[in-house]
């Protein structure tokens, strides 16, 4: 019997040499006449251990990592194929504390299965949600999603079931399901991991959304910065179509539903839902004023569900296990699990799916293990480029939509980016303004022009020019941007800027050594 090995094909693993490792194993096994089979999986999301090799043994899978191609001969000499001892052996992945502490619902299969094997998907519980949905009426599906308490995982946190009900009730010749896979926030990669590591899950969620709302066509808008995500999702759609899950009669149900992947073109603002719809229509990605809501007049003027990858990917679990099961996780009005992404200068970076309620301090210090550099953590940006910077003093904040809002922050798409003590928060505030200036769609003046003025004024502060007066000006500018912009780009850029000023005032002192002087 051949030995089964598992190596990720996730771009995170490929970026650090997984392909070279897989080739080295194949070559070595060939030379030695060993009978092996390498399964290319998604990533478990324990990125500090990538490239990881897992081998199937009678006790379960045994992992080795991080492996370099040059380690392969030594590993095979040490009986890698039967789980032998080696310095890189980390044991059973499920027993690694980072994974053991998680509640993996959405990411239950990611890193375990071959993302393009529909048999593997089915064998690991795939399509059970769809089969349940096919036994229900559309309003019953919508009701189940509503009861689960699932809220939009893209950042806005709008209840998914209510959005679906609006589209179900809307009258239209055509309706669309649009998946927002324009995951542009730095510090986030959960959507990418699903697109590359478990695309059938997203496809299943979108089919259910189609059946629930009467939509027959879906688009997955994936950013061009994710070439592997685009390729894998396109392949998965082709496979699902051949298997009868997409097309004129989904799984023999008589419901028509089909999917198409569209690639973005490098515009961050297209992650905003109305801008994304404009882009899908082939226009400049300029934000639309609401109302009308996309649920009433969305893509090509038709009723449209537009949901984030993680919202749609949570739906099969909700349907298969029931709303009550899902709702049982979490706290307050934040129900279920959230795939949190630990990023930046962090020792154990990766995907951590957990019920809402875990504190920021637990995430950064205990699970993440502090910084990769070994220096003290100084600031943590939560929620991407539009999220606030939190100091250690706020590490007791529980991961929950309302708790972060109460502290002038947001969880956004749940990216947690860690910075050590070498960070200069004035530079970070300046970057937030610069990024807004680069990516603004130009529709709203406070965002289009305010961001450029923001960079200039923060530079003046850096040069020590009229610091107090210029700080007042930045605060006033932030206020104007916050209330005078249509979407979150102009409206939320003030979060990183104001949090940097409020929590780290020593970096905005009259001279550049202000922080050192304060310490």
């Amino acid at each position, binding site marked *: 019997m051949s030995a089964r090995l598992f190596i990720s094909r996730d771009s995170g693993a490929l970026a650090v040499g997984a392909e070279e490792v897989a080739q080295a194993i194949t070559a070595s096994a060939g030379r030695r006449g060993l009978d092996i089979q390498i399964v290319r999986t998604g990533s478990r999301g324990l990125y*500090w251990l990538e490239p990881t090799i897992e081998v199937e043994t009678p006790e379960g899978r045994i992992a080795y990592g991080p492996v370099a191609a040059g380690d392969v001969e030594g590993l095979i000499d040490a009986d890698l194929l039967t789980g032998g001892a080696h310095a890189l052996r980390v044991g059973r992945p499920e027993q690694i504390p980072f994974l053991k502490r998680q509640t993996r619902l959405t990411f239950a299969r990611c890193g375990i299965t071959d993302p393009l094997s529909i048999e593997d998907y089915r064998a690991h519980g795939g399509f059970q949600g769809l089969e349940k949905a096919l036994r229900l009426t559309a309003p019953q599906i919508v009701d189940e999603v509503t009861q689960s308490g699932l809220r939009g995982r893209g950042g806005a946190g709008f209840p998914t079931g209510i959005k679906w009900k609006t589209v179900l009730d809307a009258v239209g010749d055509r309706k669309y399901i649009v998946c927002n896979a324009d995951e542009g926030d730095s510090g986030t990669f959960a959507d990418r991991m699903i697109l590359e590591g478990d695309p059938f899950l997203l496809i299943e969620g979108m089919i259910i959304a189609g059946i629930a709302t009467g939509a027959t066509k879906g688009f997955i808008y994936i950013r061009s910065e994710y070439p592997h995500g685009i390729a894998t999702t396109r392949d998965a759609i082709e496979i699902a179509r051949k298997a009868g899950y997409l097309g004129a009669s989904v799984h023999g149900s008589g419901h028509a539903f089909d999917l198409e992947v569209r690639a973005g073109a490098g515009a961050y603002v297209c992650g905003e839902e109305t801008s994304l719809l404009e882009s899908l229509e082939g226009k400049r990605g300029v934000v639309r004023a609401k109302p009308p809501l996309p649920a009433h007049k969305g893509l090509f003027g038709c009723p449209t569900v537009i949901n984030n990858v993680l919202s749609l990917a949570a739906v099969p679990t909700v349907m298969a296990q029931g709303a009550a099961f899902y709702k049982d996780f979490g706290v307050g009005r934040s129900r279920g699990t959230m795939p949190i992404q630990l990023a930046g200068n962090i020792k154990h970076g990766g995907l951590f799916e957990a019920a809402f309620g875990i504190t920021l301090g637990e995430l950064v210090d205990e699970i993440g293990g502090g910084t990769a550099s070994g220096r003290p953590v100084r600031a943590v940006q939560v929620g991407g480029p539009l999220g606030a910077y939190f100091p250690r003093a706020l590490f007791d904040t529980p991961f929950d939509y309302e708790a972060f809002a109460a502290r002038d922050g947001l969880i956004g798409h749940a990216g947690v*980016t860690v910075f050590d003590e070498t960070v200069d928060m004035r530079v970070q505030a300046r970057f937030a303004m610069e990024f807004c200036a680069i990516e603004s769609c130009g529709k709203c003046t406070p965002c289009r022009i305010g961001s450029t003025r923001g960079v200039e004024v923060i530079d003046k502060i850096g040069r020590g020019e009229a610091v107090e007066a210029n700080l007042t000006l930045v605060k006033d500018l932030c206020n104007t941007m916050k209330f005078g912009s249509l979407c979150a780009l102009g409206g939320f850029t003030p979060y990183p800027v104001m949090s940097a000023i409020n929590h780290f005032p020593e970096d905005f002192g009259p001279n550049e050594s202000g922080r050192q002087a304060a310490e």
Partner: protein
Amino acid sequence: MAYEAWNEARAREIVAAHQMQEGPALPILHALQEAFGSVPDPALRIVAEALNISRAEIHGIVTFYHDFRHEPAGRHVLKLCRAEACQSVGADRLAAHARERLGIGWGETTPDGAVTLEPIFCLGLCALGPSALADGQVVGRLDEKRLDAMIDGIRR
């Protein structure tokens, strides 16, 4: 990367192949750039005509998106991530090193036409920074030494 030389008949063929899709503009522009390495003015005239929109409109669309090039890039394209997660592990320092080593700024191409250096805002490799996209290949845990080796490899 080897691209096709500009050819109007070929451009028309590409436009026709994507024209019947819903919202065809971006798929057409991507396909044109994939074939020719950029979307030159003569191509825009063909797209405007095919989609029955004005040349001003297609100009507005193509210039809105950072991905589309008016001129072809150098023979190799190095995109370095400039976003926060990579900043936290030294992306700014690495980018300064790259600019100095190549002798060019963001968006520029070396005089020998070998390398174009561009910023990219997040590749979703935020736990593996600093990251880059080198001729379409994802690269993580990049440092000065590996960057120099990549540049030397390209130049050789």
